[in-house]
């Protein structure tokens, strides 16, 4: 005796809220957001720094403020949300098993599902950093939660590995709270975070950024005593003789984010090996019909504004799926979007050109830092788009908007690639 609802949104962070709001506004009122935390807002609740919302609200907001705008919209519409509710599995026919303290263990059957579970941080183990395993090693996001939501500063002498944005933000945050951040080491020869964060989180406080460096040893049996940082060569291999020992009680890791798709696997959804997110079509539908994905569970974004935009599209498309009961107006004509030279992946992976009627966003990340290049979209016979870029960097998501008519004119699969030497 499962409950029946029209749309289940898994996750009440920025993606889930924007998706639910957009589906609601597209006519699907029977929506439930399932949120595992005690409140809506997701990871934004701990991102107390500013820098959110320039695209969406034309002003610069902090994370909680940005989330607050969406929470208000959810509440205004009376969209149902269940906090403290953890979805344990989703079957391919969209039966959701959910557990909570309030309602126990139950199943909910939905006509459509939007996945918006976000991502997790890559832990120390996945980085294979050798050494001891003492207290004092945290992912940057865990430290952020402890500092900003619990009021607990985990340490005083800090080294940060990885220059992802959360790591940079936490370098400043720990400094403001009275800690001494000794260095940020980055394995790659370029930063993993936004340039503005290097300026306002590191340079402002005189915190050195060590590019092409990594942690090669961790000392301390019970509590962290220090770490060894070594320079690495072009194959990311530590160079003997470059070891530097840093005494510290805290090591923060900001070494990448991984979309959380364990639930997607239970629904039989095909995962893209490059994004670690579902393979999605132009409607952000996964390989399981009626299950859509958006936000960081689909691919890791750099800005929440892009998450909100993408989630709104997922919401519209899920609403449309429910309204049209999955019917397509025209016989589908599927083309593939192929990541070419310098491009790690694209979202979407496929486009149904016969039924696409909205502008298509092709989002992707580049493999390397390219200066003076062009983004090329097309195939052997046709060049659809050539967009010159002064610089592209792996830490920033690229977004190419393309008219469906233009895509149709390509007459087949298209490739997105970076052409260098375009000054």
């Amino acid at each position, binding site marked *: 005796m499962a409950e029946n609802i029209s749309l289940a949104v898994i996750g009440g962070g920025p993606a889930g809220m924007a998706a639910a709001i957009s589906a609601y506004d597209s006519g699907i009122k029977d929506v439930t957001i399932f949120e595992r935390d005690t409140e809506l807002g997701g990871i934004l609740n701990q991102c107390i720094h500013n820098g959110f919302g320039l695209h969406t609200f034309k002003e610069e907001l902090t994370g909680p403020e940005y989330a607050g705008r969406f929470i208000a919209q959810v509440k205004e519409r009376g969209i149902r949300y269940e906090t403290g509710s953890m979805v344990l599995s989703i079957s391919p026919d969209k039966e959701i098993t959910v557990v909570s*303290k309030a309602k*126990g263990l139950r199943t909910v059957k939905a006509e459509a599902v939007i996945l918006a579970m976000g991502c*997790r941080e890559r832990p120390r183990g996945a980085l294979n950093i*050798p050494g001891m395993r*003492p207290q004092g090693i945290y992912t940057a996001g865990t430290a952020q939660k402890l500092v900003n939501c619990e009021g607990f500063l985990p340490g005083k002498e800090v080294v940060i590995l990885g220059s992802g944005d959360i790591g940079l933000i936490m370098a400043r945050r720990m400094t403001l709270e009275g800690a001494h951040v000794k260095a940020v080491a980055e394995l790659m020869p370029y930063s993993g975070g936004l340039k503005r964060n290097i300026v306002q989180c590191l340079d402002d406080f005189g915190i050195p950024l060590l590019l092409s460096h990594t942690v090669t040893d961790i000392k301390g049996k019970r509590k962290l005593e220090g770490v060894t940082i070594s320079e690495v060569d072009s194959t990311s291999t530590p160079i003997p003789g470059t070891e530097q020992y840093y005494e510290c009680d805290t090591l923060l890791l900001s070494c990448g984010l991984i979309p959380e798709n*364990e639930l997607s696997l239970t629904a039989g959804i095909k995962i893209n090996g490059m994004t670690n997110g579902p393979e999605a079509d132009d409607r952000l539908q996964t390989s399981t019909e009626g299950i859509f994905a958006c936000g960081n569970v689909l691919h890791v974004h750099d800005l929440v504004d892009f998450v909100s935009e993408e989630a709104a599209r997922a919401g519209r498309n899920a609403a449309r799926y429910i309204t049209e009961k999955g019917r397509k107006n025209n016989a589908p004509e599927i083309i593939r979007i192929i990541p070419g030279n310098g491009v790690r992946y694209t979202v979407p992976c496929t486009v149904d050109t016969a039924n696409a009627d909205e502008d298509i966003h092709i989002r992707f990340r580049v493999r390397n830092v390219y200066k003076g290049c062009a983004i090329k979209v097309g195939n052997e016979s046709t060049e659809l788009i050539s967009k010159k870029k002064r610089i592209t960097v792996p830490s920033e998501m690229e977004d190419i908007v393309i008219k469906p008519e233009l895509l149709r004119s390509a007459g087949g699969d298209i490739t997105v690639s970076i052409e260098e030497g375009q000054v």
Partner: protein
Amino acid sequence: MKYDAVIIGAGVVGCAAARELSRYDLDILVIDRESDVCEGTSKANSAIIHAGFDAAPGTLKAKLNVQGNAMMDKLSEELDIPFRRSGAMVVCREESELAKLEELLERGKANGVEGLKILDRNEALELEPNLSDEVYAALYAPTSGIVCPFEMTLAFAENAHKNGAEFMLSAAVTGISRDENGIFTVGTTKGAVTAKCVINCAGVFSDKIHDMVCEPSFTIAPRRGEYMLLDRNAGKTVNCTIFQLPTKMGKGILVSPTVHGNLLLGPTADDTENREDTATTRGGLGNVRAKSALSVKNIPYGQVITSFAGLRAAGNTGDFIIREDDKVKGFIDAAGIESPGLTSAPAIALYIRDIVAGILPLKEKPDFDPIRKGIPKLASMPAEERAELIRKRPEYGQIVCRCEQISEGEILDSIERPLGAATLDGVKRRVRAGMGRCQAGFCSPKVIDMLAKKQGITYGEVKKNG
């Protein structure tokens, strides 16, 4: 305090011995320098219940391995220990090595191991499709199994405790003496206790403990082993434990499913002077990776979630050293317990009991309760049973560790029960909160909060381990 038997070391051997002796009318104390049980060799090993074909016939290792293996079915039922007879294979890569497999087969038969057989490549592939392309043949051992070493140790400890054994944790032994009446005084950092009988289960420190009161008669040379643990999504890469041909340094790098569905690779074998040196190394982890690929293909190394190292308490005699000291009567060593120590632990406990019987009168307690019930594992329960438990205790419905789907109720259980968790690692080893793919990134703030509230301490005082 006066005790009949003091056991030094709350690893699997010490705890199994405590549980076995708690059947009798004895005052028992288990002492450990750490704040929790299972903090040494018992927490970082291959988690295998070995079949018993490896040790030379006639050795204690051979005898106690096979005996311990046979005890596991009943023990896992009585003590609620996750255990599965998943089988094992020793693979060889060349025809010329076939003789070595046959040698193992014969040795196994001599040791009393049942069901051993040699499989050719095709037969082996039927059971294990991911065997590497170079595998030529395999020795198959159906009685081999996998176990949760934390829960095994905890289960012994909890059941011993239930039956009256006391535990003194965070107490390092500082000295041992024996008076003219044969009564031992064991000095610890928490004060001295007396005992009629002392049982040394101190793992890598067992020679140091021995030498506190006895003439030196053996030495322990810690041998470090590094491991990699992979995500549960990789757990089905193999169905049974895949060994390589053993060398004198050990059983080589194995590839094994774990009882919780992960994939375990390792261990390396490096002699070390430092008895605290559980650091992983770049070279060691590289070695685990390279060697594991020799026996199994398609290992998704990108799904490593953690790596760790443990120390084997390798003795200089080549065999387990389990005996009452020649001169210091009443002092029993259970030393040199390297592999297959985990498997042998239940049998070692019986062996120790028999020695104790020559020192103290053993009178069975009529109220001994052999049953220990573990913390409910909601994630692996049938839905109806799970729903019912949540109705009874709603905290079982609040998921704290999302990766392993561990609820607030289970974590509370782990902290509240006797010999409960006092640290983050203690919670992790009892209920697996933080053991999954995010490695406690999401759940640790909540678990820190729960530990702080329960113990009435600040966040800063909550410890990861120790």
